[in-house]
């Protein structure tokens, strides 16, 4: 499992670097030549399995249709629990882009890899547990589908804004939705709302 996750992360990073390179070359139309480390957008999200509120930055991995967001979310204040934090690597694919006037509307789909943290989440079990006593409970794979509406802005730094909504779930719930009759498929999904400022 750990190897599998590591491979995904390494591939993502490699893909990221190569894609960023191509973006830079293609970015001749940008008024400012973009540094590789500058994010393409910053976002705030409400709900969606990564916190009551989460914030993050986004890089484009393949032109603008494959985006990777690094998100941090907290639920501690909402839940009266000291530790309830999540770091997410959110892969978003823009399936199709529709240009309607000055707006761009895009259906999206993706997979978020969420690293949760509570006082009892384990990636590696403490030594007092027998080997393989539990499957790790720190990392969750969270698929989602959604839609976004983008509008360009006539400013030098903030070049656009988008609003997005998503319907997502996590691996554990998806498994129960498939495995059991009691958990209906529509029971496992939940909503998220977000707003992004594009640079």
């Amino acid at each position, binding site marked *: 499992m750990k190897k599998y996750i590591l491979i995904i992360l390494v591939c993502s990073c490699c893909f990221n670097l190569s894609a960023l390179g191509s973006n830079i070359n293609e970015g001749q139309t940008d008024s400012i030549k973009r540094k590789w480390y500058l994010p393409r957008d910053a976002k705030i999200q409400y709900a969606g399995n990564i916190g009551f509120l989460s914030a993050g930055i986004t890089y484009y991995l393949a032109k603008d249709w494959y985006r990777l967001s690094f998100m941090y979310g907290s639920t501690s204040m909402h839940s009266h629990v000291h530790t*309830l934090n999540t770091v997410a690597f959110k892969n978003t694919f823009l399936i199709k882009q529709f240009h309607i006037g000055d707006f761009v509307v895009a259906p999206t789909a993706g997979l978020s890899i969420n690293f949760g943290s*509570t006082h*009892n989440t384990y990636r590696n079990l403490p030594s007092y547990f027998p080997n393989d006593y*539990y499957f790790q409970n720190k990392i969750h794979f969270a698929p989602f589908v959604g839609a976004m509406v983008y509008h360009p802005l006539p400013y030098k730094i903030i070049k656009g804004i988008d609003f997005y909504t998503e319907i997502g779930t996590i691996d*554990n719930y998806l498994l129960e939705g498939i495995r059991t009759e009691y958990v209906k498929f529509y029971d496992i999904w939940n909503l998220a*709302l977000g707003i992004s400022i594009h640079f």
Partner: protein
Amino acid sequence: MIRRDFIKTNGLVCLSAILGVFPGCSLPYEYSPYDNKVESKFRDLTSKNLDKIKTTDNNETFKFAFITDTHTFYDEFEDAVTALNARDDIDFVIHGGDLTLSALHKEFTWFNEIISRLNVPFFTVIGNHDHLSNGERLYHTSFGENNYTFTYKGCKFVMFDNIVWERKNTDPDFDWFNENLKNDGSADLVIPVSHIPPYSDQYDGEDSILNQILENNNIKLSIHGHTHSFYHGKKYGKTDFLVGGDIADNHYQVITIDNGNYSIENIAF
């Protein structure tokens, strides 16, 4: 697009999104799989169920049912609730712990939805799986204290959180357990219920503190789950152990309490 048009069009979208957050409280938003969000009807369930049996105080014969380790066997769990509801001779149901598999927010919700369909009151102890992630907090919000007692028709039940490893390898509150197992003469029988039996992992069998406390207090019957296989009998000394199988075994147990004695039936459903 001129600025006025932009503000007008985007403002409407923005307003819709923001307003969506507030009615969204009743929509299926989920902040985290570890979120401590519990519907009010599923809060303080131990207290609510204790209120339902408070008035009965005579020492007549009665029966209760025992189920355990339902985890995410929701379909079998539903079947068990249906089978228990078909009986009219059970006064309440005890669940022996491991209500969930990973102690996630929705797992607690699904558990509560199913067990709340019982026609009779129910009582739970926390299991090792329920301690994972943010589970102890969710358990506390849903049910109440991990350790509690109640007395029904002359029989005292001592519900005890005896989890070790998932509590950062710290000892449970054995002082509370020992103190509450003492019979001051007001009870015909004292029955402890805890998730892990002393002969299973996390304990050292006969020499474990758990077993010593049971023996020292002359406990006739100690009820557990955890091992996923049914067992009834003595292991070390005077104490009989009833260990329920998981709910996927399609069995539950009915315990009859009669004037300080007990008998057990293992019922298939």
